[in-house]
C-alpha cells in the first residue's frame, strides 16, 4: 500500500515536473533561448498563490490569477529585455536570465521574508479519499487529474491546432514565418509568456503540497533541466514520460532511502546520458 501511495505521489509530482519542462522546451524550441529564469517563474507562481490565499482569496481564484500574472510579467520581460539579446551568443542569454532569476529571488525575500510558508489545501479538497484500507489526500488526486487534462489540452494545442502549427513552424525557421507575413515578434512574446505561465501554474499547484520558500526556484530549474535531458529536448511525449519517471523515482526512493531520494533523480539522468545521449525520446 505504501508503494501505491508513493507511486501516486510520484505521478502527481511528475506531472508538475512535466509542466515545468514542457514550458522550458517550448520556449527553447521557438526562441532557441535557454531560460534560466524558468525556476523563478515557478517561484513567483507559488508565492503569488500563497500571497492571495493568505489575503483571503479562494484558492480556485488565486491559482488562475497567479498564473496570469506570471505569464503577463514574463511577456513584459520578453518585450523589454529578452528581445534585445536574441542575436547574442547563448552565454549572454544565460547571463541575463540568471540575473533575472537572482532579482526575482531577492525581491521575493524582500516582499515575503526569507522563511517561506504553507498554503492550505483549497476548500472542498481538504479531505482524503478512502478506498478500503487505502487513504489518499483529495487535493493530490485533483492535481493528477487536473494536470492530466491540461497535458491533453497542451498536446492538442501544439499538435492539433493552427496556433501549434505556427509555433512549430517558427521553431523550424523564423525568417520563413516572417516572410509568410506572421508577426514573429508577437509570437515570441506570446510563447514566452505561455511557457513561463506554465511554470507559474506548476508553482501555484505545488504550493498546497510543498509550501513556499525563496530558494525553490533553483531546484525547480535543475529538475526541469533533468526532465528535458532525460526526455529529449523538443519532445512533448519525452517530457511527459521523463517527468513522471523522475517524479516516481523521487517518491519511491523517499520510502526506500529518504536521504538519497533526490540524489537518485540525478543518478538516473547520468545513466540515461551514458546509454542514450539524446534522451529517451529525443530526435536524432
Amino acid at each position, binding site marked *: 500500500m505504501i508503494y501505491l501511495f508513493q507511486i501516486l505521489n510520484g505521478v502527481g509530482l511528475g506531472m508538475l515536473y512535466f509542466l515545468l519542462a514542457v514550458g522550458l522546451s517550448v520556449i*527553447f524550441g521557438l526562441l532557441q533561448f*535557454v531560460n534560466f529564469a524558468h525556476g523563478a517563474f515557478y517561484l513567483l507562481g507559488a508565492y503569488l498563490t500563497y500571497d492571495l490565499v493568505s489575503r483571503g482569496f479562494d484558492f480556485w481564484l488565486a491559482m488562475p490569477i497567479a498564473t496570469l500574472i506570471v505569464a503577463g510579467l514574463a511577456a513584459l520581460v520578453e518585450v523589454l*529585455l529578452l528581445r*534585445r*539579446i536574441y542575436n*547574442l551568443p*547563448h*552565454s*549572454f542569454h*544565460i*547571463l*541575463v536570465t*540568471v*540575473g*533575472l*532569476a*537572482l*532579482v526575482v*529571488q*531577492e*525581491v521575493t*525575500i*524582500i516582499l515575503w521574508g526569507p522563511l517561506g510558508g504553507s498554503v492550505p489545501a483549497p476548500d472542498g479538497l481538504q479531505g482524503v479519499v478512502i478506498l478500503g484500507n487505502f487513504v489518499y489526500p483529495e487535493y493530490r488526486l485533483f492535481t493528477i487529474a487536473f494536470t492530466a487534462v491540461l497535458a491533453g489540452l497542451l498536446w492538442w494545442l501544439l499538435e492539433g491546432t493552427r496556433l501549434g502549427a505556427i509555433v512549430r513552424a517558427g521553431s523550424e525557421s523564423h525568417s520563413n514565418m516572417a516572410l509568410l507575413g506572421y508577426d514573429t515578434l508577437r509570437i515570441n512574446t506570446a510563447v514566452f509568456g505561455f511557457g513561463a505561465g506554465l511554470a507559474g501554474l506548476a508553482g501555484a499547484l505545488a504550493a498546497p503540497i510543498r509550501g513556499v520558500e525563496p530558494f525553490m526556484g*533553483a531546484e525547480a*530549474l*535543475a529538475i526541469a*533541466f*533533468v526532465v*528535458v*535531458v532525460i526526455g529529449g*529536448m523538443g519532445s512533448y511525449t519525452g517530457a511527459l514520460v521523463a517527468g513522471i519517471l523522475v517524479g516516481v523515482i523521487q517518491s519511491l526512493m523517499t520510502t526506500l532511502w529518504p*536521504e*538519497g531520494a*533526490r*540524489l537518485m533523480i*540525478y*543518478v538516473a*539522468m*547520468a545513466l540515461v*546520458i*551514458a546509454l542514450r*545521449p*539524446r534522451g529517451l525520446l529525443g530526435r536524432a
Partner: protein
Amino acid sequence: MNVVDRPLIQFGLAVAVALALPFCLSSGILASEVLIFAIVVAACNLLLGYTGLLSFGQGIFFGLGTYFAGVGLTRYGLAVPVVLVGATVIGAVVAAAVGWLSIRRQGVYFVMLTLAFSQLFYFLAYTFSDLTGGDNGILDVPRPNIGGVLNDPWAYYIFVAVCFVVVFGLLLVVTQSTFGRTLLAIRENEPRAAAIGFPTKVFKTQAFAISGAVTAFGGALHAMLIGVAPLSNIEYHTSEQILIMTIIGGTSSLFGSVLGAGFFLLMADALSTIWPRWLLLLGLALIVVALFMQRGLWGLVEKASAALTSRKAADKDAREGGHV
C-alpha cells in the same frame, strides 16, 4: 593582438596583483580569497573563453577539492603537498568523466547537463554525510604551518600568492601552446577542426580535465583558508558564481578572470555589509553586462589600451610628419 593581451604582460599584471593586494586590503582572508578565486575563474575561462564550453559544473570540482583537503587533513593527517596534489588529481579525473559525458551533447544541452551534474554532486555530498559532514561540512581544517606561523592569514596569503602566480603562469603556457591554439580552433569552428583531423572530443575532454584539476586545487586552498570544508562549496551557487565572475571579468584574455574574481569578491564584501539583499544588485549588474559590456571588464581595459596605442601611433605619425 592588442598589446595588453600579450602573455608576458598578462603574467606581469598577475604578479603585480599578487604583490599589490596586501597594500590595498586589510584582510588577509579576503586577499587570499581573491587570488584563490582568480585561479578558479581562470580555469573556467579556459573552458568558456578558449574552448567555447559554458560549464555550470565548476562548483563540482571546487567542492571536491575542498572535501579532499578537509578529509585528508582532518582524518588522515596527510601532508599539505600530498593534499594539494591529491585534490588536483581527483579534480582532473572527475572532470574528465563529467566532461566526457557532457560534451556528448552540444550547446544548450551541454549547459543543462553540466548544471544537472552539479546538482548530482551536491546531493552526493549531502547524502553521504558520514564522509562530508552533510550540512555542517568538515570543521577545523588546519592551515599549513608556513615559516612557523600557523594560522596567520597573511603568512597563508604568501603561500596562496605563490600558488596563484605559478598556476596562472601554467595556464598561460597552456593557452599559448599548440594545445591551446587547437582549443581556439575548436571554439571557432568545431566541424572544420574535426575535418582537419583533430579529435575534438578528446581535446574538449582534456580541457575539461585541466580546468577541473586547477579548480579542485583552488578548492583545497580555499578549505585551508577558511578552516572548513562547507557543503556550500559544491552547491549550484558556487558554479553560478564562478561563471558570473568569468563573464564579468571578460573571456578574451586570462587576466580578465583575475579582474572578474577581484571585482566580484570585493563588491560582495562591500555590498553585503551594507545590504543583505545585495544579490539583487548583482542580478541587475549581470543584465547590464550582458546588454552593454559584452567583453566584460577586460574589454574596457582592451579598449583603453587600444585607444592609447592608436593615439601614440597618431602622435608618432604627426611628429614624423613634422620632420619631413
